[in-house]
């Protein structure tokens, strides 16, 4: 069970301000999501993840990157080729 304090802590870490009235619904949602994933805990461990497939590697070869305009278009704000982020310090 996730508590309201834990939700508050996560919000703080993510720099998201949430109001007092939002706490109960967020806590409910958190728990609902975790309950949903708890189904996975009941899946028997087996063939997939622990099947011993290891060392999936690619060769060290350069492939094209995206054009700068395309990258900056993804951002809310850009300046001199940089992506502009709100004050973080």
């Amino acid at each position, binding site marked *: 069970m996730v508590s309201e304090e834990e939700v508050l*802590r996560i919000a*703080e*870490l*993510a*720099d998201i301000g949430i109001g007092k009235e939002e706490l109960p619904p967020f806590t409910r949602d958190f728990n609902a999501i975790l309950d949903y994933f708890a189904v996975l805990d009941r899946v028997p461990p087996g063939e997939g993840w622990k099947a011993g*497939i*290891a*060392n*999936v*590697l*690619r*060769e*060290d*070869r*350069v*492939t*094209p*990157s*995206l054009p*700068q305009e395309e*990258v*900056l278009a*993804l951002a809310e704000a850009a*300046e*001199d*080729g*940089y*992506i*502009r*982020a*709100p*004050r*973080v*310090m």
Partner: protein
Amino acid sequence: MTVPIGMEAGSAVRETAGSGLAAVEGGRETVIIGLEVHCQLNTESKLFCGCSTDYRSDPPNTHVCPTCLGLPGSLPAMNRRAVEYALLVAKALNCRVADEAEFARKNYFYPDLTKGFQITMYNRPLAEGGYLDIEGDGAEKRVRITRIHLEEDPGRLVHMGTPDRPRYSLVDYNRSGIPLIEIVTEPDLRSPKEARRLLNGLRTTLEYLGVFDGDQEGSLRVDANISIRGSERVEVKNISSYRGVEKALTYEITRQRGVLRRGQKVERETRHFVEARGVTTSARSKEQEHDYRYFTEPDLRPLQVRHWVEGIALPELPAARRERFTAQYGISPEHARTLCGELRLAEFFEQMAPCGNPLLAATWVADTLQGELNYREMEIGKVPPARFRELLGMLCRKEVTDKAAVEVLRRMLDQCLKGEEVQSPAQIMEKNMLGKTAGDTFTGIVREVIAECGDAVRDYRAGRGEALNFLVGQVMKRTRGRADPKELTRILREELEPQGT
């Protein structure tokens, strides 16, 4: 992880457990330092995507793709060479490679990460339990390596506004996803000087392995854990240069000693090193270790590469090369240490071997050349080996005095710096009249002119300064312009001094 507090062999340490009093060793408190060193591996492409790592001279955000931007639906694909490089380092640092290593997600929110997490290794690192021997005061000192792991470099932030009042940040993700190797030491270091030596040792080793270029800006970053025995541990982050490490640690020791002297307690905290001001400032980090919510990276398979290690051939490492240099060339251990302390310097020295006198070459490369390079903040790579070898050859054959050779060297380096073609030592000597023969020749001509131009000589001695210009002109004519007028004026003045006074 806590810093173990224990007795060191052979040291007279009195512990006052839990009292917060610093232990005293030889009249001073024992300083305990451990480092976390991050080095960029010089692969062609990034750790989990094909973007080029050669980004330094390019505009921001031009070496990025959906994977290193963390766009939805993208998947990481692990770079084989990065793993091989990390294994080389693990072997060179005498580490045990894990049977199975795996990547984990370290979750935190900061704009240098696009995904909201950094892919790193956490409780299953690639290798553990190694060591590196460094130069100690007197004997060599063994520094234990706790662990080695791979991780992706975050993006680079530029804070706009003033340091006290930042307004916003600019982000460049070209660096995001560059492979980093993190090397963590045990708290075995006892002074900023030792920390610097360890760092130099790591740099040299990684350069000998060919996996790292320490000259690249920002290729190295260090976090240091530092405490005065009996007190809390402080983590200093954000050190990004070799000199910075010594500076940051020295500052931090002074600060902690000051706190203790005032009868206060050193607080356990994270501090930032501000390179420009040479100080550390308290950085209230909101995350505690458990806030990172580490978990296995589900998009990557584990690594089972321990058996690769036997197949890896290590190149000659610094310690072996030092021994070979003393044995093969008969040079002093001190010279061997200086020369082998930098891969390019060691290679440069070996290129000088054909000059026929290794002892002379060692002195000139390790002492004279190094000194002149440091003075100019110049790299050895800029010096043309052939020209330097010619100079050494002339020294061997005693065609040039030590003093003149230093002058020639300085002029050669200045030509390198200006991007001019470097002249041969003989040309430089002649042009600047540094050679014995050249100087004698000019003095001879000067005497000739003095003997032949009696009128001008009388005028000069009578106090008519312009007569000197005439004499200089006469000598210049006879040397066909080869002489430096300033130097000629000096010789002329000397020769024109009334004798016997």
